[in-house]
């Protein structure tokens, strides 16, 4: 008994002694460590390329970068775990579609007071679509732009030429007429392709119809004539049987085989087509999205933010500053194919010399962000469900859209 007691006491004493020591190890006093290690979350499978990108940064600043690549479909899980436990990285990539979640979670440090010391992070360096006031709650800077992504019209020039069209459609009317003619090529051939999971598409149609999806107070409002027109344009492709109805239709294969010779997609499709069907080179192209009143597309892409409990804020900002330097942005475009958000980098000859990249750059000047509101994920799910119910299940369009507006209103209460 006595021995047990003594052992227990010894263990307790050891624990009591070790606790403050461990605490010291976790939180070195600021400024004493010469070479901190930054923990960075990179979304998708670009972690390896990112490690290569920052090797120069580590060489010049002695700050080590530990990259954690997080698959896109695990990001939300990772975020909720980090928020609940309080343990996060130092720097993290934030996909623009996830920005509302990250902001609501209070996961991001307000960088406003630090920014003046970092010339590369000046607001005017970046594209207008991602200017600070559009991304952040008033008076704060929670993230800074990192990479840009947009949507353009992909078309098969060879198939269009066979159908008697010398160039891609530039207006909605043309897009519709071309699609009708192309869909008449025969069974299993379509005029256009609508990905059934692509929530931003009807939003882009609304912008193209000259409308907006938010009202003056910043709330999402789909009860507008422009949205109705967009919804009608969207469902007309199904009504007139111009698009495949199978939800597992593969857009890359469909474009390569020519079954879907026109569609709106991102630069990643260009990469996939070039990789999988190099023989098609010269038989397809990209152009600005067709316009009804405007030729506006989605501004996608990612920002970078600093974890709100990071103990390496200064080192983190140094990394962000390095990432926003035009040379780094161009290097990333070369090794990973993602477009810069820095204006001066976009005018570099390595980008202006590439026909596709030229179109992307032009489209980026006319691209908009999705609304940065907390309920956006649910709203866009409701929106997609409603449109697909009309298009695929034959639900009544007016009744469905009225219900959608009610749902949107109740989600923002």
């Amino acid at each position: 008994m006595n021995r047990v007691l003594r052992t227990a006491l010894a263990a307790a004493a050891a624990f009591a002694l070790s606790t403050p020591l461990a605490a010291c190890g976790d939180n070195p006093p600021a400024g004493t460590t010469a070479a901190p290690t930054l923990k960075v979350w990179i979304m998708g499978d670009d972690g390896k390329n990112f490690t290569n990108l920052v090797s120069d940064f580590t060489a010049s600043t002695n700050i080590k970068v530990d990259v954690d690549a997080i698959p896109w479909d695990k990001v939300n899980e990772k975020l909720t775990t980090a928020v609940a436990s309080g343990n996060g990285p130092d720097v993290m990539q934030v996909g623009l579609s996830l920005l509302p979640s990250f902001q609501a979670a209070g996961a991001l440090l307000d960088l406003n007071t630090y920014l003046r010391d970092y010339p590369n992070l000046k607001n005017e360096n970046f594209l207008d679509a991602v200017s600070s006031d559009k991304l952040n709650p008033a008076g704060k800077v929670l993230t800074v732009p990192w990479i840009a992504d947009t949507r353009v019209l992909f078309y098969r020039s060879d198939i269009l030429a066979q159908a008697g069209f010398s160039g891609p459609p530039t207006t909605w009317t043309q897009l519709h007429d071309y699609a009708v003619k192309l869909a008449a090529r025969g069974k299993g051939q379509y005029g256009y392709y609508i990905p059934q999971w692509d929530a931003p598409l009807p939003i882009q149609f609304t912008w193209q119809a000259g409308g907006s999806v938010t009202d003056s107070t910043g709330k999402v409002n789909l009860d507008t004539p422009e949205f109705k027109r967009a919804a009608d344009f969207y469902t007309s492709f199904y009504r007139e049987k111009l698009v495949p109805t199978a939800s597992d239709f593969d857009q890359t294969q469909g474009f390569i085989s020519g079954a879907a010779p026109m569609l709106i997609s991102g630069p990643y499709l260009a990469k996939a087509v070039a990789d999988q069907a190099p023989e098609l080179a010269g038989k397809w192209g990209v152009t600005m999205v067709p316009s009804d009143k405007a030729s506006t597309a989605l501004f996608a892409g990612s920002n970078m933010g600093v974890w709100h409990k990071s103990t390496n804020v200064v080192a983190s900002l140094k990394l962000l500053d390095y990432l926003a330097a035009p040379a780094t942005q161009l290097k990333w475009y070369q090794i990973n194919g993602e477009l810069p958000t820095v204006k001066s980098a976009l005018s570099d000859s390595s980008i202006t010399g590439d026909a596709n990249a030229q179109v992307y750059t032009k489209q980026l000047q006319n691209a908009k962000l999705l609304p940065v509101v907390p309920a956006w994920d649910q709203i866009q799910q409701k929106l997609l469900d409603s449109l697909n119910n009309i298009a695929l299940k034959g639900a009544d369009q007016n009744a469905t859209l009225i219900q959608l507006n009610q749902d949107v209103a109740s989600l923002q209460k």
Partner: protein
Amino acid sequence: MTQTLRPATKARATTVVAAKVRQATRTKRNGAHLTPYLFVSPAFLCLIAFGVAPIVVAAAVSLTNMDISGLASWRNVEFVGLANYSALFSDAAFWESLRNTAIFVGMGVPVIVVVSLAVAIALNQSSSRFFRALRAFYFLPAITAIVAISLIWGYLYNSQFGLLNYLLSTVGLPPVSWLTDPVVAKFSVALVAIWRASGLNIIIFLAAQQAIPKEYYEAASIDGAGRWRQIFNVTIPLLRFAIFFVSVTTLISWMQFFDEPYVLTQGGPTGATTSISLYIYQQGFRFNEFGFASAASLVLFVIIFVVTAIQLRTRRFSDD
């Protein structure tokens, strides 16, 4: 006096002794009384910690507006009363997911019980090497990773380059939208789940059959019962408890139907394969609406509780 006293004293003494003995027995009995509780307490504590406590927490969370901002700071959590429940009951997607779950249960449970019982009886007819190999074969889907299953079935079902549609085309039949037609997709998803869940139930039925004494069959064959007669009048009645067990567990697992639609269709097309569990998952882990999702999961809990209670009740009555 002494004579009259003596018996009284004796009696008192006896009473005292008896009381002492009784007291001793009571103490002993009390101790014995506690022992079973000591034995069940670890299991009981586990049940409370991992079974009852989460339900209580979910019930509490379901009365709040808990979302990701609430996770960050308790200050953002507000008590909202029954607002989550009223929002839930007015959500068309919730009712559709309930309807879908009812359809899945209606399709899956009877088919699984009948198919696995039939296969188990057939497999029990012989213990040759071939039949033993078959047993392993039928159990294979149950131990295969769901991700591998979804990949393989996804390729089989694919409407553009799937094997099933290719086979149909070789005999001149038109392609079927296995996973992309709202009606067909329900069957396709249920089929994978039936295929996957049968293996385990076959093992349960096989084991139960091995426990039936051979004498019953001998007696039956002496009475002139043929093979079919033996199956229907000996095997199946004696498997009553196994059948009951399999139907209860299968019913519960199908009311929580999740894996197959999650990996094969993500609940699509247009919510046609969204089960109630998948709906809860989407609300909770995609939209981070923890309060709302807790309300939905509590509703599911009540439904399962009621259905299982009814099953256990009817079983007791039929036994009487």
